[in-house]
């Protein structure tokens, strides 16, 4: 009888230890990001300040709008790539180019796609100045994604519909501009 009880206790202890080991191994789950209910508005100077704030890291900035169908199509793919590449040191933020009346649509879109990177909104008005301050070679066509090296220099861009492979190639080229880890 004593042997039976001791055996059961040993088995129970074994399960407890195994359970503890599994719990200890499991990666801590990140708390779900709070849904974005508003978009910080940036003028051209504030946009460039956001870019400057990421100095030291390769950076990708994706411009989109709810009225831009290819933007809405590619955004989940971009989001998925960001999940993969953020751990490799890629900094990312999004720029919504919707007007004030379209903000509810933009918020609804972000709620649906659950981005893993922050999104801001271009301050309405002065479009041409903003386009030229981002990149004088940019026509203003959307979608457009810009890539900066760790020194903050505009390194490359993708405009129009692009396949996943084009983004992967651009991201990896951008990551390659980062200084090698010592």
């Amino acid at each position, binding site marked *: 009888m004593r042997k039976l009880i001791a055996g059961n206790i040993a088995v129970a202890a074994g399960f407890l230890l195994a359970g503890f080991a599994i719990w200890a191994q499991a990666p801590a789950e990140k708390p779900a990001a709070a849904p974005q209910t508003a978009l910080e508005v940036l003028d051209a100077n504030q946009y460039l300040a956001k870019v400057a704030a990421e100095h030291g890291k390769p950076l990708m900035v994706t411009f989109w*709008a709810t*009225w*831009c*169908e*290819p933007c809405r199509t590619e955004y989940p793919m971009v989001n998925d790539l960001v999940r993969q590449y953020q751990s490799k040191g890629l900094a990312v933020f999004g720029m919504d*180019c919707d*007007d004030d*009346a379209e903000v509810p649509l933009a918020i609804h879109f972000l709620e649906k796609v659950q981005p893993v990177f922050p999104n801001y909104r271009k301050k*309405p*008005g002065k*479009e*041409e100045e903003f*386009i*030229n301050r981002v990149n004088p*070679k*940019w*026509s*203003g*066509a*959307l*979608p457009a994604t810009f*890539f900066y090296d760790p020194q903050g*220099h*505009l*390194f*490359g*861009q*993708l*405009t*129009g*519909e*692009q396949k996943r492979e*084009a983004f992967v*190639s*651009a991201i990896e*080229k951008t990551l390659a501009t980062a200084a090698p880890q010592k």
Partner: protein
Amino acid sequence: MRLRILSVLAVLALAAGVAAAQQNFGSSDVPPAPPIGSKMPAIKLATLTGDTTDLSAYANKNGLLVIFVSVQCPVSNAYNERMEALAQQWRSRGFGVVGVNANRTESAGAVAAHAREHGLTFPILKDNENRLADALGASFTPETYLFDASGTLRYHGRIDDSKDPSGISKRDLNDALESLATGKPVAVTETKAFGCTIKRVPRS
């Protein structure tokens, strides 16, 4: 003096280096727009009934306005009424007005139906191989090109500065048309605005 010249040359060389270093991943299918002062390209386009036509056939005594348009782009559609109003106003003042649809995803039938639905009375042509879009470096809709009576490009860019008509503060295209009509120089010759990229035919 020599030092000043060398300094200027150094700055120019640095700027050129920075510009050259910028890469365009994946967007090399949009050629650069020709500069103001360039001649209208002689490129065949298709009417919506499938006939072949020439852009110059639509010019009038004071010039030709070309607008790249879209059936589905919300920005282009936000300008439907304004484009029609511009067409009616400036046709009566001696300008030809023609729309060009260069989106591979929008058929001639769809373009014609869209024009009927929205009351667009100016002719719209199909640029099926994107030859005109490439020759003019057109990249989004709506994007406009204004040629004078000699077929010289005098204005390129947006219609005005606001998708929402209530927010307009600059009517750049109208100002350019007025300048040409009255024999004055165009003050603002190139402008930019957000728009939908033209859905080009993939290049092999």
